[in-house]
């Protein structure tokens, strides 16, 4: 059964593989991403204009802020498109250390800024910066690197399972100190997905999921705040005055607008009813103003994004590239899915943005950067660095000999 599916997926790709390797990057993916970003900017303006006008002294404030981030993100995307993705493999440990440093820095009072009871970001050159968003990307890179390196040994517990758990667990530990439950769950889920894909034993994964579930249970029941969120998720209407307010209002906004939506700009959730409408709950206003078509469009774009990402992964010859492409794809797919499920009341609220769409600088910048990496993988370029290694080594040897020669020549001159 699965083999049939496998052949249907892989056969055309296998034939194409030779044809358009080196043929250039995936322009369809870029188009999908640009559509998502554009939809995000439009809905951001629609959702935030009233609030920005009243509280920030201009209806364009949030839009302008986000545009800056998009521009910066596009610069990073272009950069990542040009940089061979294999460099991330080579630089993985410095990057991991850098990420850990950032995660620690944000916890230091005075550097990290506390907002809504969590210390999640710090100010960097006038821009707020969330290390958690960086952590997601580096974690995916590390997992792709590690998993691809271990290859067949992934079945073993000590080699295939424990090291990843340690590294990711360490990052999750730092994230939980902020605390950032949503990102922690994201990292663990990404780890599980990559381990599953790379052939880790299902029994380990199952056991881990079980212990994770128990741990999550304690984490939730130990915190009144998280407990309430669960209760609010189970019955938003009876917690409508406090913790269930956001989700109740989100459901009202979506449901009351009808299948065709209220029309762009006509939503009412933005009148202060749905908090963070431009941020985590941007899906709400898309459903409210654009109706079911808006949601089909949005979900469709993400599904297409997943498809293109999967295609890139399948067409990549290099195991690291393959895992990295899939990891990035999974990161987008998982977060988008989780966010939309939260917005429609199918998951408890966690504080995850809708990637590439929601307002939020770090998320947007890192998202576009990750897309840049994905695009670079789609080039399927030969590893010039490795191919030219001999030449480079030769050149280096040559230079060394040259220096030595000069030295000998000079000393000879002096002696003379």
């Amino acid at each position: 059964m699965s083999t049939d599916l496998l052949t249907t997926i892989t056969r055309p790709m296998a034939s194409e593989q030779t044809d358009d390797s080196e043929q250039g990057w995936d322009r369809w993916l870029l188009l999908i991403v640009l559509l998502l970003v554009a939809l995000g900017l439009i809905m951001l303006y629609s959702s935030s204009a009233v609030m920005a006008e009243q509280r920030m002294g201009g209806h364009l404030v949030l839009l302008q802020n986000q545009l800056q981030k998009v521009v910066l993100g596009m610069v990073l995307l272009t950069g990542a498109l040009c940089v061979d993705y294999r460099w991330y493999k080579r630089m993985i440990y410095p990057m991991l250390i850098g990420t850990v440093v950032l995660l620690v820095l944000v916890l230091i009072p005075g550097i990290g800024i506390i907002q809504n009871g969590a210390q999640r970001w710090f100010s960097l050159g006038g821009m707020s910066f969330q290390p958690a968003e960086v952590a997601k990307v580096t974690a995916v890179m590390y997992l792709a690197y590690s998993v691809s390196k271990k290859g067949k040994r992934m079945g073993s517990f000590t080699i295939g399972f424990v090291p990843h758990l340690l590294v990711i667990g360490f990052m999750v530990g730092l994230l939980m100190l902020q605390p950032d439950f949503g990102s922690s769950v994201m990292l663990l889920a990404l780890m599980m997905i990559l381990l599953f894909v790379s052939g880790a034993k299902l029994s380990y994964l199952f056991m881990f999921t079980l212990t994770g579930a128990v741990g999550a249970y304690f984490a939730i029941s130990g915190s009144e705040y998280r407990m309430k969120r669960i209760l609010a998720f189970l019955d938003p209407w009876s917690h409508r005055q406090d913790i269930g307010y956001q989700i109740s209002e989100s459901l009202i906004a979506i449901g009351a607008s009808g299948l065709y939506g209220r029309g762009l700009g006509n939503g009412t959730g933005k009148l202060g009813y749905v908090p963070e409408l431009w941020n985590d709950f941007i899906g709400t206003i898309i459903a409210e103003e654009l109706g079911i078509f808006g949601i089909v469009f949005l979900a469709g774009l993400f599904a297409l994004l997943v498809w293109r990402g999967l295609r890139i992964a399948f067409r990549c010859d290099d195991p690291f590239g393959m895992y990295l492409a899939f990891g990035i794809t999974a990161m987008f797919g998982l977060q988008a899915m989780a966010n939309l499920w939260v917005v429609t009341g199918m998951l408890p609220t966690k504080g995850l943005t809708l990637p590439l769409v929601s307002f939020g600088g770090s998320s947007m910048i890192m998202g576009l950067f990750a897309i840049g990496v994905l695009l670079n993988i789609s080039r399927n370029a030969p590893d010039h660095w490795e191919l030219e290694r001999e030449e480079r080594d030769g050149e280096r040897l040559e230079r060394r000999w040259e220096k030595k020669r000069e030295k000998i020549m000079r000393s000879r001159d002096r002696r003379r």
Partner: protein
Amino acid sequence: MRSQGDDEKARKWMKVRMGLIASVFVLGFVGVVGRVYYLQTVEAEALSKRSATQLNRDVTRQARRGNVVDRNGTELAVSVEVPSVFARPRSIENPEREARRLLPHLNTTYEALVEKLSSQSNFVWLERQARPPSAEAITNLGIPGIGITNEFKRYYPLRERAGQILGFVGIDGDGLEGIERMLNKEMAGATYQMNVSRDAQGRPMITNETPRFRDFEGYSVQLTIDEKIQAVAEAAIARQVEQFSARGGYAVVLDVHTGDILAMANTPYFDPNRVGDFISDDWRLRNVTDTFEPGSIFKPFVLAAALQEKTITLNSTFDCEGGRMRVGGYTIRDVKRHNTLTAAQIQQVSSNIGSYKIAQTIGRERYYEYIRSFGFGGRTGVGLRGEQPGMLWPPDRWAEISFANVAFGQGLTTTPIQLAAATAAIANGGMLLKPRIIDAVLDRDGKIVRHNPPTLVRRVISPEVARDVAWAMSLVTVEGGTGQRAAIEGFTVAGKTGTAQKVNPETRRYDPNLWMAGFVGFAPAEKPEIVVVVIIDEPKKMHYGGVVAGPAFATIARETLALRGVFPMPEEQRFQVGKRPVAQKSALEPAAPAAVFMLPAMRVLDSESDGLLEDGEEEQGGPKVPDFRQMTLRQAMRRAQDLGTSPSIEGWGRVVSQEPKAGDPLPVPLVLTLVLSPASGQGLISDEPSTGTLQ
């Protein structure tokens, strides 16, 4: 080869797993679409309802209340929009912190504020009708759960001017007293409903249909009061009250041709802008609600009645018996002893005995009819709330001494407005007009919605008689009269002083230390334009009407004549002392103004006299006001206490009249007024101690 096959296989499996995960994502997205479809179809109705309840609200707003303006259009009461600060305590997270932030801008204490902010209710007012700068500062704080809304506040720009006439409104804009209450319905304006969309803070964002607010605005009310004359009158009586340490004072200024009340002043004053600083006694319009025994002020009506009946002429002489006369076992006195006086001189020197003898010439029945005809013992119909009819016994109950007393103004009670209306009837040639306080009700464009025309109640005396009485009254303010201080340069003033003894409510006897000093008059005497009544209640040190009330009369009359544009008359047309006026046809026929509305001719409106009626038929259903009449004070008090009220008592003796009437449905709350009177003549005697001329 084999390892290559394994690799190929492993890679295939990896792709399968990747595809599996990707399919989960795609299914997840499909799930989102399905969920939204479910929400927008199956749940749509329920969610729409929830949305509508929080989003759309029918906001009921009260339109702007109409103004009150004086006869010249000067604004006496206006409504201005002011901000009010409210809180939604449930959306306030930290009451202590927000209270500290709000405190500098609110007129309250920290503790009270914290209590309000931490209450469990959905909505509390923090400060209604706050100062605009405070409201702006609070808006700038931007505290969630704190809001500002605009309300109309009633504002009286002239402060205490005509305060008791205007009354005041409650914080919700309902008229509670005075004109504000009387014409509340006209001025309130409509409430209008708006269907608005509100944001989460409850601020109206979009009005789905915008009404034209002005269409709902209340009507304005134009009074007959002239704010400038009112100011003069208030100042004049306030000065007299202060000078003589009196308990209070009243003044009424009437236009004799139309019955327009030009001023109605009441001391102590009342500023409706600061209702809380006053007690309910201060805001009573005593000119209509308080009764007193008029005393000598009443004598011109006796003269008028006798002249009209032609039983006497101005030159008829009367033996004043040396200032002492025994009537039915009592002695009535004059202050100065006179032997023979003409009818006119009796007015001039205010002889009690002479007045009694004049009254005797027409008999008590006819006399009673005349004083009823002048409007005593019945409401004037001015329409002001709480107007008292005054108390006048029917003649068959008069002992001889009572007849004598009523002949010089004791033993019956009246109100300043009643007195002014009756005096105006003498001044304008014999026509009793209904006093008018409301000139017109105007819509927002100033067009008249309802006009309240001058109303003639009845003709009481002929123009000739009126002129004779005016001439006799003019002797009061000249050499030898009791009211020389009421004279005005350039005008002849017709007037009458009065110094009435008051009944001490504790002893229920006339108290030699409690007086009511009054002056009633009109000017110019030859061609009257205005009537002024001045009553000073319980003056100390001095109590002669001419001295205590006379100067206030002079001030008010002088200023009013100036403001009304009345010029002094040429000397040859003015009354000459000692020479009866020659009837001049033109002057004697002061035809009623064209606008005067004539009531069907009626002599005496006995039905108006409350409390003296036969018992009405008992109606079934609902508690009724019991009959207090003929009860003693003690009995009446006990009965009233059973009903849970404490009545206000006037006079002493047995209850003769009550308000509300017996048999009326029992109002809640019951405000009971009982008028008592002694059953016999005992205690009805009073003395007028002096002519009022200073020694």
